[in-house]
């Protein structure tokens, strides 16, 4: 039903429409002025576009669009898309991460070619992610996933003269193409069994009748597809390479927004299309996600311990955080309060969106200054750039789960979720891995604040765009510590509309 007062139902897609409109506007500008170096105008258009999307998403969230008391989820195009509180919540995450990335890119891209293409690809990828949040059918799910992925491949390889960037783009593309083929095959196997592709209809078809092993194989392949998009084991190999080689704002974009997009789609697919009750006999995905979560956390955190490059270490930490969020899927046992478990996963993705984007943006800042990539290169950086170092310290400690930012509470609630689902192993793995992660985050913090600076350490200029974006991220990360209760309450309510029964 129409619950926006005078607005039609399709207005629920306004955040996604704002993003795609901005992308087209940028293409139009590029057509008229192909050699333009007007970075301010391009970043401005992209920034206003993502701000508009954020405004729409925030407005709808506050107005209660898609909530049960306001007419429930809005189904569009014959149930192909659905706008509910979870979709709007994730659209708000994507729009804010896009905004941070665009503002930071203003300095990062200064003087480079093809800026209009860069910004429009960012906006198109953000559109794909926003549609992923609303997808309610395997058709729209796959198309939006590709819309998010294809621009990302190009963006990672966008430093065309840089061997690292091209290599990263190639590896991201190869693993991505492989996993999307696997994902499609999984979808086709579900279709073989059920004959429908809309999530609700798939669930109905699966609930009635005996299931063959084909469904189990299909679920396995679909999990593979999500493992790529969320950078979890076994398709995590691309992540360290792609994040290390890509331009740093793009690493921030991919590791925060793209991962959240993978998770929102996974939440919806596994809760509405493949409910555990009906498919338990073929492949119990709760068990599969428990295994994936534990393996992902452990592999990533121990690999991060051995890294000497800061960006690569953050990449592994991002893989580790995918493992933490997988807890929200692995703890959906029959004992659990499922909307609480899911809600804590969503809340962690919001907090993670800000702290991880912020951390990568500080790396972008150091790349802008031409500081090396090794941890030793950060020695004594605090003497030159105390604010940036303080911000990075907040981000890293928040990522580690120390009470400097929202990351402490969101990890704590994931722990409660694991206990609520009565999966002791997940809880233990979460605690052990968080403890391990403190070691490698502290190494960077120690290098910045304690070590003596090298003689040739000098930075020129304090780029305003990057500083604005970092300030915004650090303020939100810290504010989410006292404000986390509000977020969690909201996400748990949002999760109730997705959790069946």
């Amino acid at each position, binding site marked *: 039903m129409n619950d926006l007062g005078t607005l039609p139902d399709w207005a629920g897609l306004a955040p996604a429409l704002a993003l795609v409109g901005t992308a087209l506007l940028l293409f139009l500008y590029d057509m008229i002025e192909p050699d333009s170096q007007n970075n301010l105008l391009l970043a401005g258009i992209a920034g206003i576009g993502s701000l508009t999307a954020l405004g729409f998403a925030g407005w709808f969230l506050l107005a209660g669009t898609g909530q049960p008391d306001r007419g429930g989820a809005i189904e569009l195009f014959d149930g192909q898309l659905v706008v509910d509180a979870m979709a709007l919540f994730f659209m708000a995450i994507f729009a804010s991460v896009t905004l941070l990335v665009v503002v930071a890119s203003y300095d990062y891209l200064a003087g480079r070619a093809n800026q209009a293409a860069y910004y429009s690809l960012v906006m198109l990828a953000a559109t794909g992610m926003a549609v992923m949040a609303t997808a309610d059918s*395997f*058709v729209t799910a*796959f*198309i939006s996933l*590709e819309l998010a992925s*294809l621009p990302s*491949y*190009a963006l990672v*390889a966008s430093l*065309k*003269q*840089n*061997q*690292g960037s*091209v*290599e*990263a*783009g*190639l*590896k991201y*593309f*190869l693993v991505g*193409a*492989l996993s*999307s*083929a*696997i994902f*499609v*095959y999984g*979808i*086709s*196997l579900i*279709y*073989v069994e059920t*004959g*429908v*592709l809309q999530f609700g209809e798939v669930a109905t078809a699966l609930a009635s009748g005996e299931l063959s092993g*084909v469904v189990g194989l299909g679920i396995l392949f679909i999990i593979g597809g999500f493992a790529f998009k969320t950078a979890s084991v076994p398709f995590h*190999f691309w992540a*360290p*390479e792609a994040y*290390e*080689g890509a331009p740093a704002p793009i690493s921030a974009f991919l590791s925060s927004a793209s991962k959240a997009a993978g998770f929102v789609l996974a939440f919806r697919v596994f809760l509405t299309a493949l409910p555990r009750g009906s498919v338990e006999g073929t492949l119990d995905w709760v068990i599969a996600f428990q295994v994936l979560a534990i393996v992902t956390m452990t592999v990533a955190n121990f690999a991060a311990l051995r890294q000497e490059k800061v960006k*690569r270490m953050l990449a592994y930490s991002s893989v580790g955080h995918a493992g933490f969020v997988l807890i929200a899927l692995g703890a959906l046992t029959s004992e659990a309060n499922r909307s609480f478990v899911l809600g804590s996963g969503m809340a962690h993705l919001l907090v993670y969106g800000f702290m991880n984007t912020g951390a990568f943006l500080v790396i972008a800042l150091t790349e802008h200054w031409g500081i090396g990539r090794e941890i030793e290169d950060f020695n004594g950086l605090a003497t030159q750039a105390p604010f940036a170092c303080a911000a990075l310290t907040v981000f890293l400690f928040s990522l580690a789960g120390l009470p400097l930012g929202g990351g402490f509470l969101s990890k704590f609630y994931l722990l409660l979720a694991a206990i609520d689902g009565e999966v002791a192993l997940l809880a233990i793995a979460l605690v052990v891995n968080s403890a391990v992660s403190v070691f490698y985050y502290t190494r960077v913090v120690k290098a910045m604040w304690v070590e003596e600076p090298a003689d040739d350490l000098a930075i020129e200029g304090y780029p305003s765009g990057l500083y604005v974006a970092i300030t915004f991220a650090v303020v939100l990360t810290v504010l989410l510590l006292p404000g986390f209760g509000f977020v969690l309450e909201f996400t748990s309510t949002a999760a109730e509309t997705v959790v069946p029964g």
Partner: protein
Amino acid sequence: MTVSVEWYLLLSAAVFCVGLFGILVRQNALMFLMSVELMLNAGNINLVAFALYWGNLTGQVFALFLIGIAAAEVAVGLGIILVLNRNFDDIDVTEATTMRW
């Protein structure tokens, strides 16, 4: 005489495995792209064959979308392979190893 529907499933599984095998053993990036196409088309075979079996058009329409997306994917992939060739003077996927795993 119509072919029974199980054979289509077998065919698609075979095509999928050929594609997967190609990805695992080939080093040429273009061969890699072709192998991915094979895997995507294995999905298409299932969708089209079972659209007939179930008597609806959902699968066939999705297959059309997939063909379009596969073309877009190849376009992006060829672009990346082109810059790969410019930077590394080769399109061997095992050559580009400036970063270690």
